[in-house]
Structures are given as structure tokens and as C-alpha cells.
């Protein structure tokens, strides 16, 4: 459903990605692992239209999206949950969630999705009227994922959902990721925490200084000696 073909991205003169290709099939969790500064977030931004690749193409449902502005990419069914959550701190929880609804969805559908989000994250239902900025880090991450889900996306891009969270909260977030996937949600997951993401993903890519250096079934990559040494600390 998502095909990234040979894209290169630079910030001004500084290149961040070289000829990166990847594909995500319907219903899968695909993980991208790589250390800090490898270009993972840049790749996510290129997919969601926040930056445009200098070369290469990105196709979604057989349509090119690499030149589209971000709101059009979002309307095609790609939801980006960015690194650092980036919820709207001065809006309430419910307002944050409603921001995620696309204008093309009807009232009734929006209510269904909202119920589903509250089901996944009961704490958000409890704190509806609270300002987003007053939530804890873990709750903000849930809010960011919830906001992404509100658009009823075909694919959910998750950028470092475990960053800065306590281990129990990380487990909870990953449980939700698995649960979403079992409901049929396609997910592209970016993580520095390679072990966790390889455990939930079916397929994975390894990104090192802007290039894909390795790819394969997640279960195989967990046993790969290079991965073990570089990312799993063994």
C-alpha cells in the first residue's frame, strides 16, 4: 500500500537520506530501526509530506504523494504521530482528539472512532476536559496516538512512541500497537528501541546514516549478529 522508491532528502546542503526504498503491505507492522540521527524521523516526514524528497518517489495506494502538501497526504489516509508527541498543549484532550478528525468523515463515524480511541485509552476519556499540556508524558503519547487514529487512517506512522517513557508505560503503548494491528491497522513504526519494535513488527528495515543497510523478517533480524551487536547490546 505504501511504496517508497529511492528517495533522497537533504536539509539545505546537508543530505539526510540516500536512495531509501521501503514498502509496507496492508495489515502489517513494519519497523524501522536505527540509532539517533540515522534519518528515521526524516523518512517519516517525507512520507507525510512535511518535507519533500529531492529525488525518488513515494506512492500510496498506487498514487504518487511525494509532491502533495501534508494536509492532502493526511486526507488520503496517512496519519503521522510525530516524535515528541506534539499534541496541542493549550487545547483540551477532547479538542486535541477532534482536531484529528478529517472534514470528509461524517459525524456518526467520528463518534464511533472516538469511542474506539476511548476504549483503547480509557484515561483519555477521564481527562477529556483537561488541557493537553497538563497530561503526563505517557498520557500525551496516548493522546498523540489517539489524535492520529481519529482520522481513521489506512496507515499509522509512529515515530519513537516509547521515547522518554517509563518501562510500564512503554509496555502499555506497545500492547496498544499490537492490539491495533490485530484489528487490521497497518503501522509503520520507528524506534531506537530495536528489541521492542522487532518483537511487534513482522518486517523491518535498518537505517544507518541515511541508508537502508539491512532488511528482513523481524524474527530473523532479531537473531542477526550485526543487529545484536549494534542495537540489542549483546
Amino acid at each position: 500500500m505504501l511504496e517508497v522508491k529511492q528517495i533522497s532528502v537533504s536539509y539545505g546542503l546537508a543530505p539526510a537520506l540516500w536512495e531509501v526504498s521501503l514498502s509496507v503491505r496492508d495489515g502489517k507492522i513494519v519497523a524501522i530501526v536505527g540509532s539517533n540521527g540515522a534519518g528515521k524521523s526524516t523518512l517519516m516526514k517525507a512520507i507525510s509530506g512535511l518535507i519533500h524528497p529531492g529525488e525518488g518517489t513515494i506512492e500510496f495506494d498506487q498514487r504518487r504523494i511525494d509532491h502533495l502538501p501534508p494536509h492532502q497526504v493526511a486526507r488520503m489516509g496517512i496519519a503521522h504521530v510525530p516524535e515528541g508527541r506534539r499534541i496541542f498543549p493549550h487545547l483540551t484532550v477532547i479538542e486535541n482528539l477532534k482536531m484529528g478528525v478529517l472534514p470528509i468523515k461524517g459525524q456518526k463515524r467520528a463518534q464511533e472512532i472516538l469511542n474506539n480511541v476511548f476504549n483503547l485509552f480509557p484515561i483519555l476519556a477521564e481527562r477529556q476536559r483537561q488541557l493537553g499540556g497538563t497530561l503526563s508524558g505517557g498520557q500525551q503519547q496516548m493522546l498523540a496516538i489517539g489524535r492520529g487514529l481519529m482520522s481513521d487512517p489506512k496507515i499509522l506512522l509512529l515515530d519513537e512512541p516509547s521515547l522518554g517513557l517509563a518501562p510500564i508505560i512503554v509496555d502499555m503503548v506497545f500492547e496498544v500497537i499490537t492490539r491495533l494491528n490485530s484489528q487490521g491497522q497497518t503501522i509503520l513504526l520507528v524506534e531506537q528501541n530495536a528489541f521492542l519494535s522487532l518483537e511487534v513488527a513482522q518486517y523491518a528495515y535498518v537505517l544507518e546514516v541515511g541508508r537502508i543497510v539491512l532488511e528482513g523478517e523481524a524474527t530473523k533480524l532479531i537473531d542477526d549478529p550485526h543487529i545484536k551487536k549494534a542495537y540489542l547490546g549483546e
Partner: protein
Amino acid sequence: MYLWLLAAGLTLVFGVLGVLNFAHGSLFMLGAYAAFTFYGKLNINFGLSILLSLISVGIIGAILERFFIRRIYDLDLPYQLILTFGFILIFDDLVKMVWGGVAMIPPMPGFLEGNLTVLGRPYPFYNIFIIFAGLAVALVLWLILEKTWWGRMIRASASDREMAGAIGINIPFLFTTVFVLSAMLAALGGALGTPVRVVAPGIGTAMIIQAFVITVIGGLGNLKGAFVGALIVGILTSFGILLFPIFELFIIFVVMAIVLMVKPEGLFGK
């Protein structure tokens, strides 16, 4: 209260678009000229003239944003200054060409004539009308921003433009609507003022300086701050004119200096 209308538009555009629009006073002036033409020249009724002025200046605002202001969102302040200052000169000359350089005072609408006696002194009915108009605008703006879907989008993109785009908000279009709203607020200020103040080229520039002082006092980009700032400046200038007429402008700059010394980010700034 004219100042509040000006400061509100200035604040919206700065807070949401990140642009300091020096040509905002020109939109005020255009509103005044438009109202003068519809009301004073074409004898259309006062309320309808104001509405027509808002629509005309709103359209000018849309064109300005769409073709010019849009290009400078990501540029530094000096570029914004050059572009918007350029528009001040263009609009001033345009107005001179169309309406001539002479100051013109349009007549007062009949139903707003007369005085009200407040504490034993006569107080023009029109001033009271203006005060209520200003309060009404404040209320409507608050309702829009806090209670509507449009307002929620505006607040979201003011706090994180990139993220707002990523979740599906059409930022360029939203910004055009915000700029149009701001232009209409300026035009409303200009149009409402026509029966009591001289309509002349350059009236916008005189007002915009005070409006800037207000936004700085209140905290740049903060609407509540702009409202309180406008009240403070309005009250001070009234007293200033009574007590020391020559120092009217001087006083508000002193207030600004004091506020900036005590709280550099402005009264309501973050």
C-alpha cells in the same frame, strides 16, 4: 475601541501567521474610505455601508494574503517589514489617486446623533455605540476562537503549524481566512470611525503605531492582552488629552516602557 479592533487583527495575524503586518493600518484606512464612499457619497444606509466596506476590504485582504503575504511566512522580520511597509506606501498613493488628498468628514447617521448625560456631563451617543461595538467584537472573537471548529483549527495551528498540517488542516487556506478576518476587523474600525473622524490618507499609519504599542503592552500575539492593552491606552490617552494635551502619544510610550521593564514579554505574554 478603534484601537482594540486594530490591535485584535494585528494580534491574530501575528499570533497565527507569525507575520507582523505593518500594512494593517492601511486596511483600516481603506475601510474608512470604503464606508465614506458607500455611506457619504452613494447614500447607502449606514449599517449596509459598513457591511459592504467589510466585504470589500476582506476581498483585498484575501488577495494580499494569497499573492504576497503567503510568500514571507518563513522569512525573517526585515522582509516582512519591507513588504508590508511597501504596501502602506502603495495604498496611501492609491487612495490619493482615487479620492484625492483632501480630508473629508462624512455626516453622522441620524439615529446615532445626540448626547447622553453621564454624571451630569453630555456624552456623545456615538461614542457609547462604539464602545458596545468593540465589546461585541471581543465577545464574538472569543466565541469563534473557543467554541467553533474554525477557532480550534486557528488555535491549533498557532501553537504548532507543521503538526496542524500533518493532521489534515489546510494551512494555506486557513491562513487566508485568518488574514481576511483580521482585515475585516481593521476595516470595521475604519468604517465605524468615519462619522466622527477625518478620512484622509495616512490615518492608518497614525493609528497603527498606537496599535503596535497596545500589542506590545499586552504581549505579542495574545488577544486578551490586546484587549486589556487597548483599554489601558484608551483610558490613558483620554486622561492624557485632558491633563497634558501635548503629551498624548508620549504617555502611552512611557506606559509601554514601564511594562517592558517590569515584564518584557508584555502583560499577558508567555
